[in-house]
């Protein structure tokens, strides 16, 4: 019976495909993983970098600062993107696994407080932002706006942006539990853009025309104020490597921190290093 050949052929074909795929391994591979804030920088620089270096393959994943660092310690990625500095507990884990993470600052970032374009508020004090996020204020009229419920939008409690925001603005207090917890900067921006009473916080790179960034303590978040340190909610963005960068990893990190990479940082809306 010839008919039987077909399923066998399917199995063989699939097996051969996988096996063939398994044997060919040409280019040097670099895996970059971590913070969704750093993701656009990593993606665009990788794209341009690979255009210049055909023999190096970079793949870029999001996931979050925590997972990036965990993967770096596991050895499942080569570079961990992080929007916060590594924590002491993470350094302890690294020591236990005999890993020696090295940090590279790749850009500066301001966390902009954004509201809907229809909102007439243009500035808030840092204290007011804190009260809104902790729940002490829940109506726009309490901060000089039109009466209306404030829809608080926050990053997932485990993201690096959230941790930076918590440290810089909330000073360790908790975000009200009814805040919309979103998995990414872009989700926050798009919700605030569609929600008249919304308030959110996003990396500077995510501020577009569809939302309005607020002055905080009288300072507008922009590249100048972040770089000079005047804007109160800003932070450095990191790439971590295991030990000092070598080979392809070093080439890529040099590219990111070099003039071409920093130009991309600027284009993507973040603040290039001087």
């Amino acid at each position: 019976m010839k008919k039987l050949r077909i399923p066998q052929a399917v199995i063989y074909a699939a097996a051969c495909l996988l096996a063939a795929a398994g044997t060919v391994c040409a280019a040097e591979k670099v895996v970059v993983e971590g913070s969704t804030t750093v993701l656009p920088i990593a993606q665009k620089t990788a794209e341009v970098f690979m255009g210049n270096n055909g023999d190096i393959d970079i793949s870029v994943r999001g996931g979050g600062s925590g997972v990036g660092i965990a993967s770096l310690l596991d050895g499942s990625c080569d570079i961990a993107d992080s929007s916060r500095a590594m924590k002491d507990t993470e350094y302890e884990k690294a020591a236990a696994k005999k890993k020696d993470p090295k940090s590279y600052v790749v850009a500066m970032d301001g966390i902009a407080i954004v509201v809907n374009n229809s909102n007439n508020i243009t500035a808030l004090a840092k204290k007011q932002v804190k009260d809104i996020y902790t729940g002490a204020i829940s109506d726009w009229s309490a901060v000089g706006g039109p009466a209306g419920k404030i829809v608080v939008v926050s990053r997932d409690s485990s993201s690096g942006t959230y941790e930076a925001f918590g440290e810089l603005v909330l000073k360790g207090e908790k975000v009200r539990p009814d805040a919309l917890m979103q998995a990414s900067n872009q989700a926050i921006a798009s919700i605030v853009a569609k929600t008249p009473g919304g308030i959110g916080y996003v990396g500077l790179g995510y501020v577009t025309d569809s939302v309005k960034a607020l002055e905080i303590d009288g300072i507008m978040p922009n590249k100048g104020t972040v770089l000079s340190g005047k804007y109160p909610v800003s932070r450095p963005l990191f790439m971590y490597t295991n030990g000092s960068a070598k080979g392809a990893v070093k080439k890529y990190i040099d590219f990111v921190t070099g003039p071409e990479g920093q130009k991309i940082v600027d284009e993507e809306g973040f603040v290039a290093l001087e």
Partner: protein
Amino acid sequence: MARIKEKAYEWIFTALAFSSLIFLVGIIIVLFKEGFPIFKAVKAGDFLFGRAWYPTYEPPEFGIFPLVLASFWVTLGALFVCVPLGVGSALYLHEMTSFRQRSVLKPMVEILASIPSVVYGFFGMMIVAPVLQDLLHIPTGLCAFSASLVLGIMAAPTVCSIAEDALSYVPKSFREASFAVGANRWQTLTKVVIPAAGSGISTAIILGMSRAVGETMTVLMVAGGAAVIPKSIFDPVRPMTSAIAAEMGEAPMGSMHYHSLFAIALILFLITFAFNIAAELISRRFRIKLGHSG
């Protein structure tokens, strides 16, 4: 030699046949092994009924009650959409279409049941949420209500397909007997066919519920994601599945947060396990009642 070969094949098939069982047991073991350590840090009662989900604070709080409740409400809401739509459509297919129409419509419904959940989530995020927000003047369209609506629409074809199968098991003689005593088609449907197929239809509803409670991408994209006990159906919520999908990427392996997400998955698994067992028991009884075996 031939006998040995025969035996060998039988043994291979027998061994491989247990793969499903092995995977199922494997899933249970993994969930217990990775989920249980959380109960060293938090009491089971505090975990299940705690009202605060702050997994990354110092000290962290692991109360999943808001997440469980969110799954419950969203699933309940989805039932209000998918039961009338799904069962109604099944009754329509069964009662009001010719054989030819049915042989086109039924496959169409089954094809629609295969639309990927991420597409539903995308549709919910781009179309349903903004429309509802404008229409109902709610602060945000990403809420329990939208999630229920999208989930309900999503589960309707599944419910319809299984319920129609159940209806088609009802013997013709039941209907003929009913017509013979002067009942019209509607009376026959409501008084004879539906009760006869009742447990089959319940199976369909339970399986639809099981799909809704375990659905991930749709609720992740549409439910809003606030880990709070909802006060109204227009509040954003964070069902168990979306908490797992959103936070697993951020939880360092081996941390309490990581274990707590596995513990949530364990609870989720037990819930759907119970649903499936219930569905199976009911459908078995149903087949015996109508004189089908297997």
